[in-house]
């Protein structure tokens, strides 16, 4: 029996409605392309709302020494020079315009005294650079894009999951999706597809990511023949909540440290001063006093070590906890209340004003008043630097007509992403993906859909209903999360990675036997079952790449190879699906950087 489906035709199909997806859709539709957007959640609920700190753009409103060059150099240094330099360049140059554009669409950023957009300090950024709205910048951004987009005639499909990309020969032809609510299939025929599906955090047990982050876009692209790059680089955000257990992993914004928050171990020692990496020594304060002066805007002071890059801070915290110097619930202390010593009674109001949602989050979920008590925090999986390999200018992948932007795309962040570079990434490359997807769509004719492909994919999606008494999808997902957390976590070794590969293979076998009950209407069991495949695919890609990179760099730390190896700094690792269906790994040399950019990096050292 043939599976029925509803069919829609469009020119550009955007998968995902976070910052990148919405920005891409707005641009594509403004360029005249008939644009549809599918999203797993309701409109405006995407993971972008969780972004707290701000978006990095060298507006130079707070410190006029800032410029795109400094931002570019900061991004490259943070990424340990594995970034696609052209993307870092485009990003640094275009981010200010994207921020201003958001304001013209109604976003209201916090202001400087002279009425311009205020910028705050963040890890790895030399100058205060993050345009922000308290600690809910992501919400402001997504709401602005959403409200702007709904008046543009974009066709939004809420609670619709993309299950398979469809192709016409080598080029992209659309996607098979299912509506979560009714369980019906929807086929989009599209000349161009933009992936904007975000990350993979749900492959881990402790993560700041929402359920949506199951690596859908990574897996869709991989199976469609695109390459995944830099998959070994998973960012552990240094500060996630650790208590109570049910909120373990929920993000505590870096903005807390940007506003002067300090990290201490059980003994009250400010351990971040103990270990400052060589390449940041010139930019880091030597004592707490200088650090505080930096926080309050002294241009001659250097930043406190709490504002080093996330990979480093996360490892330092991990070290303290492993050494038994952690807090009672297995974290360390993050203290913002101490600024009372400097600001007196005004400190409480200041904290509540600059970090309102952190205040409520701790008050409501942990019963802690962060204006008087320290928080307990520990590393949490937050972001994947790796993703679909794209052309730096157009964001098109190796598959003609398939674009990717935002977290699902690789290249901008290299081995480690700087906080605040994600929101600007979404806007800069979301816009480019939309623009070039529309351009591409204009240049090609309508693709032809292969009915057999559609029927095969639909049958695959429904297979869990056909089985009885098979594996519980929730339990399998949980097992995978435990495995990745324990074996492919913040510190990795060859032996554990090998065990992880075996474990993933076994889970993949069992996943073939997953069964679900009930019917197709809003059935989370079924949805969880279908999320297993992408999760397994990205887990395998992460593990294989991590095995191959026998050094420590950025978000990837190997206990058996604890140092950076220059030889590994010359290439990115790329994963592709081979003709026989196995996962293949190759080393792709970095493109040589033009001399003017090399010079900028030298000047900013």
């Amino acid at each position: 029996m043939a599976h029925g489906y509803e069919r829609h035709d469009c020119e550009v199909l955007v998968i995902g409605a976070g910052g990148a997806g919405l920005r891409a859709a707005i641009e594509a539709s403004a360029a005249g392309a008939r644009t549809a957007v599918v999203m797993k959640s309701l409109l405006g609920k995407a993971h972008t709302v969780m972004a707290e700190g701000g978006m990095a753009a060298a507006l130079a409103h707070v410190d006029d020494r800032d410029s795109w060059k400094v931002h570019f150099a900061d991004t490259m240094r943070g990424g340990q020079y594995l970034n696609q330099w052209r993307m870092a360049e485009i990003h640094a140059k275009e981010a200010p315009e994207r921020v201003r554009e958001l304001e013209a669409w109604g976003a209201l950023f916090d202001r400087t005294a002279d009425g311009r957009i205020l910028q705050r300090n963040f890890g790895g950024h030399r100058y205060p650079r993050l345009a922000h709205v308290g600690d809910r910048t992501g919400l402001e951004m997504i709401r602005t894009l959403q409200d702007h987009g709904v008046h543009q005639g974009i066709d939004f499909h809420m609670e619709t999951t993309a299950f398979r990309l469809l192709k016409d020969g080598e080029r992209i032809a659309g996607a098979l999706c299912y509506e979560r609510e009714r369980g019906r299939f929807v086929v989009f025929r599209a000349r161009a597809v933009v992936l904007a599906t975000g990350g993979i955090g749900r492959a881990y047990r402790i993560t700041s990511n929402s359920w949506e982050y199951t690596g859908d876009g990574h897996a869709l692209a991989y199976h469609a023949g695109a390459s995944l790059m830099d998959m070994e680089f998973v960012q552990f955000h240094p500060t996630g909540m650790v208590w109570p257990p049910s909120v373990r992993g929920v993000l505590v914004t870096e903005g807390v440290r940007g506003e002067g928050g300090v990290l201490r171990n059980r003994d009250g020692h400010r351990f971040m001063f103990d270990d400052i990496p060589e390449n940041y020594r010139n930019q880091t304060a030597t004592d707490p006093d200088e650090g505080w002066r930096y926080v309050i805007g002294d241009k001659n002071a250097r930043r406190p070590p709490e504002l080093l890059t996330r990979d480093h801070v996360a490892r330092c915290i991990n070290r303290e906890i492993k050494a038994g110097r952690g807090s009672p619930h297995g974290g360390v202390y993050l203290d913002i209340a101490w600024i009372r010593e400097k600001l007196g009674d005004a400190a409480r109001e200041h904290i509540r004003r600059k970090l309102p949602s952190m205040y409520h989050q701790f008050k409501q979920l942990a019963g802690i008043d962060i204006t008087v008590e320290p928080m307990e925090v520990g590393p949490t999986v937050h972001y994947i630097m790796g993703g679909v390999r794209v052309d730096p200018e157009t964001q098109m992948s190796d598959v003609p007509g398939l674009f990717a932007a935002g977290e699902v795309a690789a290249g901008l962040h290299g081995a480690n992403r700087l906080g605040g570079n994600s929101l600007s990434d979404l806007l800069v490359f979301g816009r480019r993906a939309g623009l070039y997807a529309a351009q591409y769509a204009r240049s090609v004719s309508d693709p032809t859909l292969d009915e057999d492909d559609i029927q095969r994919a639909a049958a695959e999606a429904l297979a869990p209903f056909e089985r009885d008494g098979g594996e519980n999808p929730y339990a399998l997902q949980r097992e995978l999360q435990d495995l990745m957390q324990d074996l492919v976590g913040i510190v990795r070794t060859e032996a554990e990675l090998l065990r992880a590969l075996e474990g993933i293979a076994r889970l993949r076998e069992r996943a073939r036997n997953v069964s679900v009950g009930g019917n197709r209407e809003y059935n989370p069991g079924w949805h969880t079952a279908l999320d297993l495949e992408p999760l397994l695919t990205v887990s395998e890609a992460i593990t294989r790449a991590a095995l191959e990179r026998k050094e420590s760099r950025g978000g990837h730390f190997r206990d058996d190879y604890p140092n950076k190896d220059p030889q590994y700094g010359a290439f990115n690792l790329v994963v592709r699906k081979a003709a026989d269906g196995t996962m293949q790994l190759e080393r792709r040399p970095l493109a040589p950087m033009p001399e003017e950019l090399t010079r900028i990096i030298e000047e900013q050292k």
Partner: protein
Amino acid sequence: MTAHPTRRVTLRIWRGDRNDGRFVDYVADVDEGMVVLDAVHLVQATQAPDLAVRWNCKAGKCGSCSAEVNGMPRLMCMTRIDQLPADEPITVEPMAAFPLVRDLVTDVRWNYEVKKKIRPFRPRKPDAADGTWRMDQEDVDRVQEFRKCIECFLCQNVCHVLRDHDKHAEFIGPRFFVYAAALEMHPLDTEDRLADLRHRDGIGYCNITKCCTVVCPEHITITDNAIIPLKERVADRFYDPIRRALRVLFGD
């Protein structure tokens, strides 16, 4: 590490679809600090795999997991179990003001349709040569409060104009008064929505019960800061003869 005491609770969860439904009791052992959404997930993972619940961030930032817990509209992810009465079953049911999809999931699309009708942001010409604007924090503050809204629609759900009187066709509800207020009070906006608010949006149906403010998980003072100021602006325009005379004589 301290021990995490577990507690046995009964969750009385609404199960059903458009046609039929009932409360079903589930017993679950919950850890310290768990929220209602955790308990619902526990039930889902171990007892009722097809229990439909909408959620996303689990940190009170996306506004997906709206439901009614012990009769009060709340975000399940921000409702701690240890703050609910210990010895009674915890009732969890879907929002009452919207059509049911299944179990705890309701169809909230009406809200998205309403938003589309509200006139979009239209900024004045840029102030500065670089094409940007200058705004004081103080003026921005007022609107930023409204922009904290996470669109959980709990205010829409609790508002009796929608919940009990089904005025969905004539009344846009607290969420969209907050939205309209954010636009109307935006320092840059030049659009005029007062006539819409009076007629099409039915601001007069609001009888200031403040239930929206009570349930707002973002602590937005919906009634006092958004709806009443809009009512006052509408009164300026339509109900105040002196204002009207002044406007005729001196312009706005």
